């Protein structure tokens, strides 16, 4: 069969710009590096005119950061916080998905569950910290509980939205092939909800990194939050900034990893060459 005139490929996407129109240099977005370098420059200038204990110099912060990454104890503290974030997010994701599925299938269940999740969203992270300290003895379980309770609603709502966004047309088309439950999940449900799940992880990662510090501040004997508390007690601004940077680096690394998955899993998506 000959193709009609005008039919053809859309062509590969241009590689020099990403979706947001950022230029890439050897795979890096140099605008981001320039912005961060600018921030460091402004900080360094400020450190020349402001007392040292308020604005330590950039080299001093760099030195503290180097010390953190060359000390096994500090590394284990950073890893402990990272593990707590990932464990909490995994727990919230599993629980959120288990909640979202019956909510999607049963309007009656949703009518009960939705107000509870909304109620939960109104509870500040610090309240969960107090509750966890009163209710539980183990430090790790306390932190896990706090992480799960603070990130659960977002995961549930995002998984629910992703599931609801499933195309009725595609659902009927797939159903016409009489798939097994697993077949339907693998070929339709999972690819449909995956973008929403990846977004949920990216959004909740930022939230979780803030919450974990609060949780560690009040109960832990190790981790970034604990170290920040130590820096506050000895009034060491360079140390506080360095430990904050450790957490930021962790978030950026995990977000980069999620972006890699996203780039691979969502490579089918078309995008316009013009920005919106």
């Amino acid at each position, binding site marked *: 069969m000959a*193709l009609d005139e005008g039919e053809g*490929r859309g062509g590969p996407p241009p590689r020099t710009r990403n979706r947001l129109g950022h230029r890439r240099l050897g795979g890096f977005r140099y605008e981001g590096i320039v912005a961060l370098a600018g921030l460091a420059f402004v900080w360094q200038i400020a450190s020349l005119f402001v007392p040292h204990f308020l604005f330590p110099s950039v080299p001093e912060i760099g030195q503290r950061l180097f010390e953190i990454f060359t000390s096994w104890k500090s590394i284990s503290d950073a890893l402990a916080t990272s593990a707590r974030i990932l464990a909490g997010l995994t727990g919230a994701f599993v629980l959120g998905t288990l909640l979202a599925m019956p909510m999607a299938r049963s309007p009656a269940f949703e009518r009960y569950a939705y107000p509870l999740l909304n109620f939960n969203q109104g509870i500040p992270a610090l309240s969960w910290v107090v509750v966890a300290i009163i209710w539980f003895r183990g430090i790790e379980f306390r932190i896990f509980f706090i992480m799960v309770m603070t990130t659960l609603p977002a995961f549930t709502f995002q998984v629910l939205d992703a599931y609801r966004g499933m195309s009725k*047309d595609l659902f009927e088309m797939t159903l*016409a092939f009489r798939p097994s439950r697993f*077949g339907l999940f693998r070929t339709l449900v999972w690819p449909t909800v995956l973008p929403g799940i990846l977004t949920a992880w990216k959004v909740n990662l930022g939230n979780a990194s803030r919450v974990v510090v609060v949780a560690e501040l009040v109960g832990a004997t190790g981790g970034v939050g604990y170290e920040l508390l130590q820096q506050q007690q000895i009034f060491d601004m360079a140390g506080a900034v360095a430990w904050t940077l450790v957490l930021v680096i962790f978030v950026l690394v995990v977000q980069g990893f999620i972006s890699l998955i996203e780039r691979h899993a969502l490579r089918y998506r*078309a995008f316009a060459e013009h920005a919106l």
Partner: protein
Amino acid sequence: MNEAPEILFERVSKTFARADGGTAFEAVRDLSFAIDRGELVAILGKTGCGKSTTFNLIAGLLRPTVGRVVVQGHDPYAESSWFRGKIGIVFQNDRLMPWRTAIDNVALGLELNKMPPGQRLGVAASWLARLGLSGHEHDYPHALSGGMRQRVSIARAFAGKPDILLCDEPFSALDEHTGNALREEFRELLRQTGATSIFITHSIEEALALGERLMVFERPARIAYQTTLRADMSESEREGVRGRIRQVLSG
């Protein structure tokens, strides 16, 4: 001895409840017909006459409110899994999965029917080639034109060698030129496969071009007129059928 019909509708009615709680909408009323194995039937009717509901009842995507739908001796809704691999569907719009390449879209039914990967990709590639899409196997739907996407969806329906092929206005979303070209080849494919085929359309010319038997529906879906088209029919006989269909549709 007469063979049992491939598709049987016995006094079927289908009503839909309205979301706002208003009076139920009756899409199909007391519809009865039988289609034999290998028949090529075109169902014709105005928009909203219940053609697509009838289509969905045969496909087992809907359950009749009253009456009985029997396909190959089984209930297509209640015995859904029995029909795995037996019914192929071409929808009005292509309904391709955007995350699957052309070849993976064609192989979808085979995959759900648990055909080994190597074999199913071979079958899918041969169907894509047959429909003029060689070289586009690994393109995602967004990189294909409307006509090409509809070809992929036709290949997907044919790839599983279904006993029954259901087509719901598959060319209505295409421009006239592409639709005509695809229609010709589609008819040839239908003849080659020998599947029982039901073709839903609102175009008289399309129904005359594709069907061996025509059923004209009035609202709510009931047969207002039906006729068999012989291959040796003269143009004046066809014109007579055309006129009768127009009369029924305008009435």
